[in-house]
C-alpha cells in the first residue's frame, strides 16, 4: 500500500502545490505523509536497532539470567528466584552496598544542589566578572574518571595531603580520610561537590530565564528580598531544580569509578557502592546470574526513588502550563 502511494508522490505534490496546501485532496496528502512515514522510520532506525540490540534484548536476557546460576564455564542452570532471595537474605554486602549508596546520594545530591544553586544566585546578582567565575567553577566538572580520583587520593593523603594541610592552618588535626571507616564516605561526598559547576551553569540559566516583570510586580506589592525569592524565584526555577534532583539521584546511585579506584570499596566496605558490588560479582567472581539479579534490584530501587520524587513534585514543582488548566 505504501509503495503505490510513494510512486504517486511527484504528481501529488504538483497538484498539492496548485491547490495551495490545505486545500489538497486526501490522496495527495496521504502520499506525502507516506514518504515521510517511511523515511521517518528509516532515519530513526539506527536508534531503534540499537534499542532492540543493546537495550530491550539485553533487558529480557538480563531478567532471564537473573533466574539462573551461571559461572560462564558450566552451562547455566535454572534457579528460580533463588538469586533474589540470596541477595536479600544471605548476602549482607547487598544491604551494606544499598546503605552506602543511599547515604552517598543523600549526602552528595542535596549538597550539590544547595551549593550549586547558591553559587548561581550569587552570580545572578549582576556581579561583574560573571564569565570568569563561571569558567573557574565549571572547569572541574569537565574533568573526570581516573585522573580526578588519583588527584583526590593525594589531596586526602593523611600526612602530606592538601586537605589536612588546610585544616592544620586553622589548628585542626585532620582525620585519615580515605583510610578511615568513618570518613571514607564523607570524603567521596565532599569530592563530588567539586563538580558542582555543571549544575551551577544550569541553575544560572534558569535564573536568567525568570521574567523581570515578575520581580517588578512583586516589589510593587511590597515584597522584600526574601519574599521575591520565595514567591517568584523558587517557583519559577522549581522545574529545573526538580530535573536536577531526578538526574542527581539516578547518577549518584550509579557511582563506580571513585569507589573502585580510590578505596576499592574499603575500608571494611565503608565505600562499597552498589555498582562496585555488582561489578565484582559479574567480572571477578563470574556469577553472571547473580549479578543480573543485583542489577534488577538496583533498577527497582532507582525506579522507586524516581517515582517517589515524581510523586512529591506536584507539591513543590510549579509548571507555567498549570495556569491554563
Amino acid at each position: 500500500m505504501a509503495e503505490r502511494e510513494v510512486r504517486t508522490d511527484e504528481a501529488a505534490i504538483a497538484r498539492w502545490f496548485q491547490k495551495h496546501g490545505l486545500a489538497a485532496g486526501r490522496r495527495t496528502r496521504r502520499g506525502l505523509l507516506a514518504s515521510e512515514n517511511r523515511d521517518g522510520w528509516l532515519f530513526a532506525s539506527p536508534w531503534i536497532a540499537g534499542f532492540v540490540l543493546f537495550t530491550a534484548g539485553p533487558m529480557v536476557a538480563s531478567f532471564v539470567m537473573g533466574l539462573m546460576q551461571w559461572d560462564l564455564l558450566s552451562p547455566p542452570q535454572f534457579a528460580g528466584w533463588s538469586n533474589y532471595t540470596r541477595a536479600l537474605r544471605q548476602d549482607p554486602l547487598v544491604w551494606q552496598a544499598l546503605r552506602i549508596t543511599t547515604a552517598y546520594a543523600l549526602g552528595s545530591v542535596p549538597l550539590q544542589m544547595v551549593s550549586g544553586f547558591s553559587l548561581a544566585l550569587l552570580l545572578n546578582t549582576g556581579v561583574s566578572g560573571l564569565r570568569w567565575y563561571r569558567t573557574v567553577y565549571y572547569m572541574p566538572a569537565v574533568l573526570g574518571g581516573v585522573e580526578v580520583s588519583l588527584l583526590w587520593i593525594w589531596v586526602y593523603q593523611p600526612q602530606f595531603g592538601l586537605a589536612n594541610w588546610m585544616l592544620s592552618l586553622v589548628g585542626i588535626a585532620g582525620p585519615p580520610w580515605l583510610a578511615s571507616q568513618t570518613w571514607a564516605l564523607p570524603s567521596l561526598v565532599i569530592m563530588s561537590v567539586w563538580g558542582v559547576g555543571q549544575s551551577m551553569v544550569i541553575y544560572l540559566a534558569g535564573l536568567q530565564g525568570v521574567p523581570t516583570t515578575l520581580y517588578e510586580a512583586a516589589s510593587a506589592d511590597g515584597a522584600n528580598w526574601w519574599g521575591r525569592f520565595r514567591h517568584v524565584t523558587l517557583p519559577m526555577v522549581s522545574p529545573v531544580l526538580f530535573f536536577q534532583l531526578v538526574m542527581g539521584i539516578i547518577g549518584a546511585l550509579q557511582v563506580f569509578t571513585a569507589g573502585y579506584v580510590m578505596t576499592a570499596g574499603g575500608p571494611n566496605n565503608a565505600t562499597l557502592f552498589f555498582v562496585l558490588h555488582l561489578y565484582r560479582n559479574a567480572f571477578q567472581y563470574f556469577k553472571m546470574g547473580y549479578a543480573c539479579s543485583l542489577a534488577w534490584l538496583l533498577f527497582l530501587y532507582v525506579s522507586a526513588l524516581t517515582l517517589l520524587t515524581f510523586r512529591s513534585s506536584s507539591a513543590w514543582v510549579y509548571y507555567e502550563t498549570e495556569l491554563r488548566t
Partner: protein
Amino acid sequence: MTSAVGRHVAPPKFRRRAQRAAIHFVLVCGACVVLLPLAWMVSTSLKDLGDVFLFPPKWIPTPPRWSNYHEALTSLPFGVFFRNTAFYTGACIAGQLVTVSLVGFSFARLRWRGRDIVFMVLLATMMLPGQVTMIPRFLIFRSLGWINTFLPLIVPSWIGGGAFYIFLMRQFLRTIPLEMDEAARIDGCSNFRIYWQIVMPQVKAPLIAVAIFSFQGHWNDFMGPLIYLHTTDRYTVSLGLRMFQGEFGTEWHLMMAASVVAMLPILMLFFLAQRYFIQGVVFTGLKA
C-alpha cells in the same frame, strides 16, 4: 545577596557597594577552593620525591623538575594508551554525530506513525541504569569474539548513539521553522537532502556540543574499557593510569604528572570551546 532587581528599593550607595564586595569575596574564596586541588596537582608534578613529603608543603618547587613528565610518560607505554583512547574516542564521536543527527532529525521534523511512542521509549531509556543491560551486552560481544577489541565501545555509538544526545539534537532541531522543509519538499526535495543540505548546516552548534560531550564522556570513561579491554597494548589512558597507580603507588610526583597530561586534552578543549560546553549543558539541563 540581593537580586538584580533589588535596584527598585534603592539602598544607600555604601550599602550596595558593601554587598557587591561581600559577593565578590565569597565568589573569590569559592574559586580558590575549587582551583586549589588543581594547583596542588601541578605543584606536586614538578617536585622531586623529597619535596613531595614536606610538611607544610612547598608550593613552588625550585627548580621545577620537568623531567618528572618524561619519566612518568615513559615508565609505561602512555603513547600507546593515548593513541588507543584517541582512536576509540574519535570513532565514537563520528558515529554519534551521524546517528544522533539522523535520528534527531527524524524525531523533530518528520511525521511518522508511532513516532511519539518511540520517542517516549527513548526518553524512558535515559532513566535506565546501564548496569541492567551491562552483563548481557558483555555476553553478546563475547560471543562475537569482540572482547579486547574496541568494537564493543564503538559499535553502540553507531547503532544507538545515545538517547541523551538524540534528545539534545531533537530539541535544537525543533527550534528551526518547519516551513523550509515544506517548501523544499514541494520542490521535490528528498527527505535526505532536506536533512543534509537544509537542516544540518544550521545546527552546527548542537553538533559541536554533542561532539564535545562525547569526547568528554569517552575520554573519562573507565568502566567500559575496564570491562572490555584486557591487554596493555589495548589500554586506554584511564586504564593506563590505573595501572600506573598499581605500580608506582607512592611516587606521587610521577602520578600527578601523568594525571596532568591525561587531563590536558579535555582542558584544552574546554578553553577552546567553552561556549559550546555551556550551551549544551544549559540546553539539556533545562528542558525536561
